[in-house]
């Protein structure tokens, strides 16, 4: 089945590897502009209340200060429908932006910021979802009737009948706590708004287009007046998709001072700027038959949205649609709501917002399997979707390797020999997941465009608007172009990171890079190939359709002796009477909206050892299988599996932003417990290739699929190890011990 490719499927090293390994690859904070000022933001110290007075007079007198701004300077600029850029009357969380300064050096900026005096009148704050939704609770945002920021309800099939026909119905409630993306490069930006009619912004980002649109919209500019430079992005993990207050604050400061302004977050500030995952309360109810057939899933989800909603509604959309994507159920009911509180605003961590929901659903199904005496792996397998299936929501799978993933991980890990047979406090667990490759949702379209030009020496410049945040997207695009044109990835320079130069691309989120931009690059390469084939065909006196492009050569299929070098053909095309300069252009927009054309699938099996005295969990091994359609670059695919397992493990066992009185009390990268080298498990990678008919060379996404398979694999293993299904996430040592105590208590009662 697998076609033999030259470049596709190779373990390709990153094209920008040498630049990054030598520290030459520039990140935003490495950029120095002439006359650049340093900015510092002044933030609220109360979770809710009125601003009585802001006194900036002393700050303005600090030598080196060039601009001080408050709401007066940013009136009318909105970050989102419910969020003013700088608070005018009300503040909504500890950290809300109230004022800012720009000065010639950082010390002056810090000194001035400290001299800005803000008087507040505190008001009662709503710090939990219970408080925010209690009858009589103050309404946090005007134009709302209550503190529900958004609601999504999705129903498919006859839910009530499906429950009535079920042999076993079970309901479980879960609670998850906030976590943080913690990428290596902290948030920051440089904005130069000192020229009339043009704004340039440097910032790490997953999507230049959304930054461009956001800045333009908020500042009343047209998009072409905004130039976004996202040179390199030091990790994103769903945390860098939109314009943040600091981007717009830098713009306002720059305008006022007529100089570029840089604002970079401190390590502590980063925790409140990032919009990472918030807390949630998730209820799952399902109905199954005795034989394990899953008939119906019902879910009621509450997510703490924090002070401002921004784009968190996306999480509800993704969770709702995913609920009916993994198993062949006949009915589904989903209600998801976002709740405003006076906590730090949230979005989600890596995983499309699915990590809390996958944890909860996985634990729920684990408990169901226990109830009916079925091996949980068999429960997943029995109900798994497969190729050709269309779900109750209309999601159709042209390729699906879910069952293959389950089979292969089962075999590799020795599941059948281990499940139910391990010594006490050793456990094994399985998690399955599905992730769409791109898809509509934010806009009417989901377009990526690409163009390429070929120099007379046969070397390519490939222009793409897709950022590379480390996932290797640029290298993957180069490999796609190289395969199409029969050249090497090293022959290609990828040019990106500047909206004045790069073509349109919605961005690297929603797992669209490989699939959508990949198809765009393939189309652009085919366009160029056609132009080159014309010249070669003329020279070789054959039909263009009979030409093969391979190993930097172009030859006739029927007569391989008739060969030309790629470089020579390109040269000749340019130096002909026509003087044609070869340029390829292409775009791709997925035609469907349910939500995507292609989906990756995965299964992961975790083995753990629990210390019953301390409650600490050691993740011994992960067996990870993922259906990526086709691994364009297996080295990069493994890298994604590794990183996402590590991140999933972090979220499941270690990481929690502990909230108290509206503050994160462990707001540092030492007290927020990120796992390190000793916590890394043994890894087995299994790449499953189902050759999707729509993906470029059959490829689908792998940028977020694996993490959606991870948390319940680990949580299931821990629950298996201690003999109790845990319902709080992360599974901290204290919660594990509590689970053991509850288990013992229940045993005594029986």
């Amino acid at each position, binding site marked *: 089945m697998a076609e033999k490719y030259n470049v596709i499927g190779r373990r390709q090293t990153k094209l920008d590897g040498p630049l990054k390994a030598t520290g030459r690859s520039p990140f935003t904070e490495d950029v120095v502009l002439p006359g650049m000022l340093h900015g510092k933001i002044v*933030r609220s*110290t*109360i*979770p809710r209340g009125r601003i009585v007075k802001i006194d900036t007079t002393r700050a303005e007198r600090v030598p080196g200060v060039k601009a001080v701004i408050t709401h007066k300077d940013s009136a009318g600029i909105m970050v989102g429908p419910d969020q003013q850029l700088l608070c005018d009357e009300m503040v909504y969380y*500890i950290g809300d932006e109230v004022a800012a300064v720009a000065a010639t050096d*950082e*010390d002056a900026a*810090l000194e001035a910021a*400290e001299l800005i005096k803000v008087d507040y009148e505190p008001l009662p704050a709503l710090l939990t979802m219970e408080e925010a939704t209690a009858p009589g609770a103050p309404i946090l945002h005007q134009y709302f009737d209550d503190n529900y920021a958004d609601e999504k309800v999705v129903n498919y099939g006859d839910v009530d009948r499906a429950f009535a026909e079920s042999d076993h119905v079970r309901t479980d409630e879960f609670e998850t706590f906030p976590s943080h993306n913690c990428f290596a490069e902290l948030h920051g930006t440089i904005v130069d708004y000192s020229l009339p009619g043009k704004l340039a912004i440097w910032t790490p980002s997953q999507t230049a287009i959304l930054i461009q649109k956001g800045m333009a919209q908020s500042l009343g500019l047209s998009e072409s007046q905004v130039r976004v430079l996202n040179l390199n992005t030091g990790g994103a993990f769903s945390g860098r998709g939109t314009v943040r207050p600091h981007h717009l604050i830098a713009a306002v400061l720059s305008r006022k001072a007529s100089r570029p302004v840089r604002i970079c977050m*401190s*390590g*502590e500030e980063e925790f409140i700027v990032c919009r990472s995952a918030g807390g949630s309360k998730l209820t799952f109810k399902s109905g199954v038959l005795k034989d394990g057939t899953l008939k119906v899933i019902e879910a009621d989800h509450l997510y703490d949205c924090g002070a401002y909603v921004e784009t968190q509604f996306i999480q509800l959309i993704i969770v709702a649609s995913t609920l009916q994507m993994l198993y062949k159920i006949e009915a589904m009911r989903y209600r998801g709501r976002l709740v405003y509180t006076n906590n730090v605003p949230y979005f989600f961590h890596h995983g499309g917002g699915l990590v809390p929901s996958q944890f909860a659903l996985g634990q729920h199904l684990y408990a169901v399997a226990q109830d009916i005496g079925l091996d949980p792996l068999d429960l997943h397998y029995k109900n798994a979707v497969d190729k050709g299936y269309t779900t109750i929501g209309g999601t159709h799978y042209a390729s699906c390797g879910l069952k293959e993933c389950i089979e292969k991980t089962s075999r590799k890990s020795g599941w059948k020999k281990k499940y139910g047979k391990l010594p006490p406090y050793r456990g094994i667990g399985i998690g399955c997941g599905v992730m769409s490759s791109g898809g509509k949702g934010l806009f009417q379209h989901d377009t990526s465009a690409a163009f390429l030009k070929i120099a007379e020496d046969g070397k390519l410049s490939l222009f793409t608007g897709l950022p590379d945040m480390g996932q290797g997207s640029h290298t993957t695009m180069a490999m796609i172009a190289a395969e199409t044109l029969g050249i090497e990835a090293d022959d290609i320079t990828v040019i990106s990171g500047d909206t004045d130069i790069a073509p349109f691309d919605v961005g690297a989120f929603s797992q669209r890079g490989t699939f959508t931009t990949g198809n765009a690059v393939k189309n652009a390469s085919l366009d160029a190939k056609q132009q080159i084939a014309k010249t070669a065909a003329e020279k070789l006196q054959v039909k263009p359709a009979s030409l093969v492009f391979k190993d930097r050569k172009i030859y006739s299929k029927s007569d391989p002796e008739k060969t030309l070098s790629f470089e020579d053909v390109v040269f000749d095309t340019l130096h002909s009477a026509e003087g044609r300069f070869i340029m390829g252009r292409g775009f791709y927009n997925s035609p469907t909206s349910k939500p995507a054309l292609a989906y990756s699938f995965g299964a992961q099996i975790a083995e753990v050892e629990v210390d019953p*005295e*301390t409650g*600490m969990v050691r993740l011994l091994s992960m067996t990870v299988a993922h259906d990526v359609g086709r691994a364009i670059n297996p080295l990069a695919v493994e890298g994604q599996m590794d990183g996402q397992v590590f991140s999933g493990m972090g979220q499941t066992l*270690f990481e929690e932003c*502990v909230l108290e*009185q*509206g*503050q994160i*009390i*462990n*707001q*540092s990268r*030492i*007290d927020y*417990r990120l*796992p*390190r*080298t*000793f*916590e890394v498990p043994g890894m087995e990678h299994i790449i499953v290739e189902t050759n999707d008919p729509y993906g470029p060379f059959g490829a689908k996404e792998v940028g977020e699929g694996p993490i959606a398979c991870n948390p319940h694999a680990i949580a299931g293993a821990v629950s298996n190890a201690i003999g109790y299904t845990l319902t709080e996430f992360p599974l901290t*040592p*204290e919660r594990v*011990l509590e689970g053991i105590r509850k288990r013992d208590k229940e045993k005594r009662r029986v």
Partner: protein
Amino acid sequence: MRLPRFGYIKPSSIEECLNLLQEYGGKARLLAGGTDLLINMKYRVASPELVMGIKGLPELSQIVMDDKGYCSIGAGITLSEIVSHKQIASDFPAFHKAVQSVASKHIRNMATLGGNICLDTRCWYYNKSKWWRDAREVCHKMGGRECHAIKGSPRCHAINSSDTVPVLIALGARVKVVRKGQERIVQLKDFFQDNGARPTVLAPEEMISAVLIPREASSARPAFIKIAMRKGIDFSMGSIAGLLAQNGKGAGELRLVLNCIGSAPITLKKTVLVIAEAGFTDAAVERAALTARSELGALTNLFTSAGYKRHLAEVLVKRALNELNELPGKNRSK
């Protein structure tokens, strides 16, 4: 996070250093490794007028097996230097293990033993920037009247987070404390006080110049257990050091010291008595572990809940006793 403004002097001798400490009192701070002080300065919980760079001062940089029966380690010796010191590793394996468990290798390359002994106590509500702390009332440790860790408490409950301190106390170590014109020896067990805001007996014009470990302690059986969520980087959630000396008459002298649970290291007394009276039986070990729970004083929910701290103390005592009692082919009575 930038450092605040300060003046800087690099004294060329310990004498010069002590003169300056005398002159500046609490307005000067010693900078050795920088891995504690500079972080606190970035958070603005420390804002000295003068920073004195004592890294590399020869008087603080010797490891000597002295003629009075002590292993004398200069306060300025880095933790990495101790880790690679073969004799310390063989004579004091639990101490060596404790040193190697401090933070990360990067930190150990810079941090000093003196710095780890005088490590500032830690608290979620303290190790934060001024903006963060401004959301709450000023706490005891910052000169205010509140404790956010234990509401209403008249004193600070920030946690002593040193990994080397419990082992050194168990080994019977002392420190040489110097001030201008004066030197005194303080038993390390008397060096700490149960107050997060004033965790040691050091006066502002004093400093530690050396740590003295009695070499006879190397003949005792040691133990050190650090419980942390991550290996190779974490502050401890609870640590214990133990020492079982044979005093020649058949009965052992047992020492157990807990740390990272409260504001000061806790030398267990009633716990040790249980074993002294009943021996290392399984029942006695269980009883001793339970007894430890009552010797902990007021506990906070800092970093872990008070209940978990109490539970960890029990676990640590049990594990330390088992480690100290471990003999090949042991045969413990029930």
